């Protein structure tokens, strides 16, 4: 039995302790904005927040997800999230878009810790998030604009 707080809602779920948070979010709760890309914290597509900080949900067991979890579906309620979403659209960042929820979640976490990151700081913070379409330069521009 796991207790979870996701996007402000409390859930009591009958799932194994070691089940990764990603699959609880996707398959049990049906929140499909958080993506599966690699399953071993190599790509960042599954990024969510635990108490406001970016974590990889594919390698976080549900038993370790103690605190407030936020997913992409609720990040528009956050002023930083909102600004980033707008910058993403203004600059036409997404191509296929599959990695972008993870990218935005990671960027929100970055801006929360560092409201005006320089280019190198952005690269340092964001290099764990892969994008196969190659939108990196626009992501950097969008974070700087947000």
């Amino acid at each position, binding site marked *: 039995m796991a207790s979870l707080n996701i996007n402000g809602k409390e859930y009591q779920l009958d799932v*194994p302790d070691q*089940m*990764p948070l990603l*699959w609880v979010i*996707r*398959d*049990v709760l*049906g*929140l*499909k*904005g*958080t*993506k*599966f*890309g*690699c*399953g*071993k914290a*190599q*790509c960042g*597509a599954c990024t969510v927040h635990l108490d406001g900080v970016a974590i990889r949900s594919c390698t976080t067991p549900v038993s370790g997800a103690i605190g407030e979890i936020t*997913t*992409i*579906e609720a*990040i*528009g309620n956050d002023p930083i999230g909102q600004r980033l*979403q707008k910058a*993403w*659209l*203004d*600059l*036409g960042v*997404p*191509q*296929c*878009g*599959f*990695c*972008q*929820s993870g990218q*935005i979640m990671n960027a929100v976490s970055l801006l929360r810790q560092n409201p005006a990151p320089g*280019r190198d700081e*952005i*690269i*340092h913070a*964001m*290099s*764990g998030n*892969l*994008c*196969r*379409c*190659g*939108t*990196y*330069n*626009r*992501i*950097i*521009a969008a974070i700087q604009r947000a």
Partner: protein
Amino acid sequence: MESGPKDRLQIANVSRRRFLTGLAGAAALVIAARWDLVETAEKRKYGAEGMPGGYTDNPNVFIHIDPDGTVTVVNHRSEMGQGIRTSNAMVIADELGADWDRVRVKQAEGDHSVYGNQYTEASRSMRQWFDPLRRAGAAARQMLEQAAADRWQVRLSEVKTGVHEVWHEQSGRKLGFGELAEAARTLEVPDPASLILREDHELRFIGRESGLINGVLETSRPKAIDGEGIVSGTAVYGADVPFDNPLYAVIARPPVYGAELGRFHESDALNVPGVLKVVRIEGAGLPAAFNPLGGLAVVATNTWAAMQGRKALKIHWDYGPAEDNRSYTSSAYREILEARAQIPGEVIRKEGNFSKAMEGAHQRISATYYMPHLAQTPMEPPVATARVQKGNAEIWAPTQNPQATRTKVAERLGLDVTNVTVNVTLLGGAFGRKAKPDFAIEAAAIAQWFEGRPVTLQWTREDDLQHGYYQTVSLDHLEAGLDERGRATAWLHRSLSPSTMSLLKADFEHKSKVEQGMGFNTTPFDIPAILLENPPATAHVRIGWIRSVYNLPHAWAIQSFAHELAIAAGKDHRAFLLEMLGEDRKISNRSVGDTYNYDEDPAIYFIDTGRIRGVIDRVAAESGWGKEMPRGRGLGLAFHHSFGSYAAVVFDVEVSEGGSLTIHRADIAFDCGPQANPERIRSQLEGACIMGIGVALLNEVSFENGVAQQDNFDRYRIPRMNNAPREIRIHLVENPDEPMGGVGEPGLPPVAPALVNAIYAATGKRIRRLPVGDQLKG
């Protein structure tokens, strides 16, 4: 240009912003041109017309207008990041006169009898559908105008269309699209010959620059159709369709291509909580074509349980049928290719006498280039959901090829094709991987055990890298002779790579005509003696294709070697390239043995060396080619033409004493003829730049005893943000009167050689084996 069949001539006219075929003189010309073609026995169809399923330009198929004025555009091409859902809707909305805020897009099911060809590959969506979709938009507009004219009892010529409304010039009366929708729907679709396309100055979206242009944000553009869904997590990809009570599955597949399922204990998996069933998936033997590889599916109540169940299985594989493939080891295979490259192969193209020209040469140069297998690794691994119910199957899949998916699923389940529905979700990247319907067939094969219940088959990243349709491995051996003045007089290119045709015919060891036409027999240089050969190469894995396909190794080898020749000749690389290209001329693809030509009409699409020179000149000017560079820093150049488009790239790189590489800037000049959506052309070229950097520096799938040695992004490395150039500058060449070229792929081939040439300029070190990897260290 005058000798194209009717349809293509119209495209040429569209690009010149003329009436389609509204003038008697123009119509007469078209008819004359058509007769001319019949005379020359040129009966093959080209473009969208030549594709399976052909095309339709019927507005009733693509455009629905509701009484409330909402315009719904049906998009029949797969969206995989190229922006086609937005761009197609823009083309229609522009011709129609629709208000963008009132335009919606509905994704078509897979059905070519209704929508025409839907296979989204070869950079053909806009290239082949620009004209039919404009015609559909114009026809719908004309039907609205006719409905208004009927209502007002006035002549059609007195009626005009504004934004989302039709008005009568003299009286000032107006009616909205919604008010006219019902009446317009009952009218006959106008004859395509009677359509008048919008003049250039009337266009609001087509060809208009907007968005982020080399770091500067221009005017706002039409909002991307899927933008808000993507940034808020509501966009629906392959695994995101909501279902009641779904099941989830993964499959254990044979580790070596052709191996078969042996002994196993299904209870090992069934003991894992959440696992419901283990299902045997039949393979199709060798070669596998587009069928599943076979194996054992584990079905569970959630994806993780299915993965755990698979992990618990101890399967003994039968390697008997795969004995030959089990000896496939990449390092040894490279040696085989190297040995074969020393022996003459099948002659693909021959001009002049190569041996004689070499004898007379002042300098003789040779080099061999290697490009390993690559994996597409879209961020969304293959995934599909199937539901089989009462003799019907429904599929939800991120597929580039909904029609093949439909046919193959029907075949597998023994159903009539009309009993199979294929819903195309957004594709979380594809790059050629999702052109193959194997994963949807797998989902269907599992779902037939669970009547009425949707089953989502998920590929893991390990599955994707270990059981892929890999881009071919390639070895290219080149030799050339230079005369006393450093001019190339002889050129030999022996190119070896397993063919994608080996998927269908196991002993197919030569490049197909399609593969030859991808930058091999189309080599554009004006050299007196040219000899192109293709020695055999055997496939031991499934050879699929990645973005730009065989253009990738061909461009890498040719553009690297051309640079080596320039250095041997003591000439500036750009000047040397222009010298080898010779006089501006349009080379007929047929004249060099290329019967593919990206399925375009050889009377319209040529190898245009003037356009090659155009992109080289442009990229040279923009990048400051020829400027003095500090020590350890250099510029590298390469060009390539493919899919009807022309691209040239210059990289500015720096390599430290310790061998670490900094990419300061990439400049890309691109000429695709008319530009439908320049903003998305730029984004595609930026993406091609990043992907090409991966090809040059990082990507490699290698095999040991038939098993892929890479299984996730820690070992199969693709570019991360820290690999991106500080700046990517895109330079679109205005060439609206040329035939439209593709966009998604043609930017990619010149990227890797330009980068490797820049590394040489910075360090004097020549890389001939990709990826660069650690070769710059020490």
